[in-house]
């Protein structure tokens, strides 16, 4: 394991973390306002699907990401209608939406895309930043990625600013902690929660889109493989803070990138253990920190006037 090896590990981890980061940041916003999205995985899966569908239909990467965003928002909208209008339990609705997203995308893959999964769509090009990308060891990892990866990292301070420095962010916090008090102070609880939920859908949709449009170029059934749940765990592990979620996502991605590289080194470790390593680390980290965690007080509780 040379310094070069670690530098390439960082390249892989940074790219790997970006889709997770979009979803986790979206969920931070939503949970701050008291709305939990178990269907984060479904939002990503639908985004991954509509992203590829948009790319195949238009051949344009911007249109593709716009469709990915729309896909995530669509799932969020269904969740909102079920929970805010019909008063469904947020967790139950989320579970149902995950099943629906898996079924619908797999079904549409065959009926709409004609199951021609081998057909490669346009994918995002790398956009190296001059001079910075030549910095030894970290330049390639930090400054030779695609625009979406840069945006994922810029979104961390942006979401922090949104939640702590704007009226909108403060309103979300109030709505997530004590909605009745917020309402009496003139904050529209329902509107705030809708905004947070749809924003989460948009970000998770982009994250899912990045998964397929960021290099894979194809959609395969259940392509997200549960990373939406990892993003969900990252929000808890990151204590509902953007920077915390960023740290959790990076930890998971670094371990994941490490395990897949460690195998190729020929270490005498059963591969099953290496494959499980990122999940083990996540569970251990969650278990170690969970006692000190306090979720938003009104999380997952529907607001009734």
């Amino acid at each position, binding site marked *: 394991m040379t310094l070069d*090896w670690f530098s*390439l590990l960082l390249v*892989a981890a940074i790219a*790997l973390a970006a889709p997770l980061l979009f979803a986790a940041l979206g969920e931070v916003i939503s949970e701050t306002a008291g709305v939990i999205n178990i269907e984060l995985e479904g939002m990503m899966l639908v985004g991954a699907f509509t992203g590829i569908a948009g790319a195949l239909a238009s051949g344009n990467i911007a249109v593709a990401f716009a469709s990915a965003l729309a896909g995530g928002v669509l799932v969020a909208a269904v969740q909102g209608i*079920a929970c805010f209008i*019909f*008063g*469904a*339990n947020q967790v*139950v*609705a989320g579970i*149902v*939406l995950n*099943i*629906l997203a*898996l*079924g*619908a995308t*797999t*079904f549409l893959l*065959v009926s709409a895309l004609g*199951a*021609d*999964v*081998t057909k*490669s769509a346009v994918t995002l090009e790398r956009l190296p930043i001059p001079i910075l990308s030549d910095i030894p060891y970290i330049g390639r990892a930090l400054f030779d990625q695609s625009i979406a990866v840069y945006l994922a990292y810029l979104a961390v301070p942006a979401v922090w600013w949104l939640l702590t420095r704007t009226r909108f962010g403060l309103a979300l916090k109030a709505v997530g902690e004590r909605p009745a008090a917020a309402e009496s102070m003139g904050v529209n609880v329902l509107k705030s929660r809708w905004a947070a939920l749809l924003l989460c859908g948009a970000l998770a949709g982009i994250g899912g889109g990045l*998964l397929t449009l960021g*290099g*894979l*170029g*194809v959609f*395969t*059934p*259940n*392509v997200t*493989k549960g990373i939406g749940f990892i993003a969900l765990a990252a929000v808890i592990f990151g204590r509902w803070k953007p920077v915390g979620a960023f740290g959790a996502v990076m930890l998971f991605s670094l371990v*994941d*990138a490490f395990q*897949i*590289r460690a*195998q*190729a080194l*020929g270490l*005498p*470790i*059963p*591969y*099953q*253990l290496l*494959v*499980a390593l990122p999940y083990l680390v996540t569970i251990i980290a969650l278990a170690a920190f969970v006692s000190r965690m306090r979720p938003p007080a009104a999380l997952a509780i529907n607001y009734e006037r």
Partner: protein
Amino acid sequence: MRTRHLLTAVALTGALTMSACAGANGTPEGGDAAEGGSSGEDQLRVAVILPGETSDQGFNTTGEQTVELLQKDFGADATLTESVNPAQQLDVYRQYAQQGYDLVVGWGGQFSDGAVAAAEEFPDTKFLVVSSGVENGSNLASYDTALEDWHFIAGYLMGRISKTGVVGQVSGQCFASTASGQNGTRDGAKYADPDITWLATYTGDFEDPTKAQQAAQAMIDQGADVLATNLNQGVFGVVQAGEANDDVKVVTEWLDNSATAPGVIVSSVNKSYARFVGVQVQKIIDGTWKGEHERFTIPADWGPAVFQTDTLPDDIYQDALDVQAKVASGEIDVVRDETCPG
């Protein structure tokens, strides 16, 4: 409150129906009778149970080809079910047996347990599992192939093509049959170039293209320029890694799918199981079926074990065919190695 319960029920029903439509169900599709085949009582009825989708350009596509071969060559009433969850296998076996199918084929060793149980319940129906070792001496048979022989030839190609002296394989899961194939590739590469560096990674999931892409990129970062695969949907990730890097070639398997990524897929291992199912069906027709396990080596009239493509140098291809002849004649003794890493 009543509205809420109703809504939840409707949503659940809808979701489950959608996922059922997506193919994760166990309902056999209607069989397509063979064109020109007689639909009389003597027509053989065969059903194939696939673990994935026929669109994978690999293992499951060859399952579909098997159905086509049985219709064409045997005039059989042959059908298939895609994406059968191994947990639901017994139910699917039962449904076909109850519908009076003569032979039900489990496409992959993961469908062994259900076949064992179904064979006991339905003594008049025959069950066959590919890539498996189960048998009961009456109505349950299985076969596998000496995968190491096929993959040795592919490994030889890889060793010859590589300019960096580093080659590797991205696989899904390790068990006896997949290990024998992967270790055969390794031994073939080392036969071509004893100093070659061999890299191996199991992603833990045949169907995960993202993980496969990362694994492939990790190998490329270590200097690998020829990669083999043992994946289903995951193969797209390896091919994509090949396309994203200059001078990286990929060797796929099951059938010639080089048209999906010309210039990147340099060859494929020609090892479709279709013909061997035909051998079993012929036994049923001849009345010589015994319910036994069989292992097939490369038949003498198999043709090339690796497919030729425009990017594969002809001299290397010809040398690979020589190696195949030597493997077939026993001049090269390929050792079956079923060990997994760790």
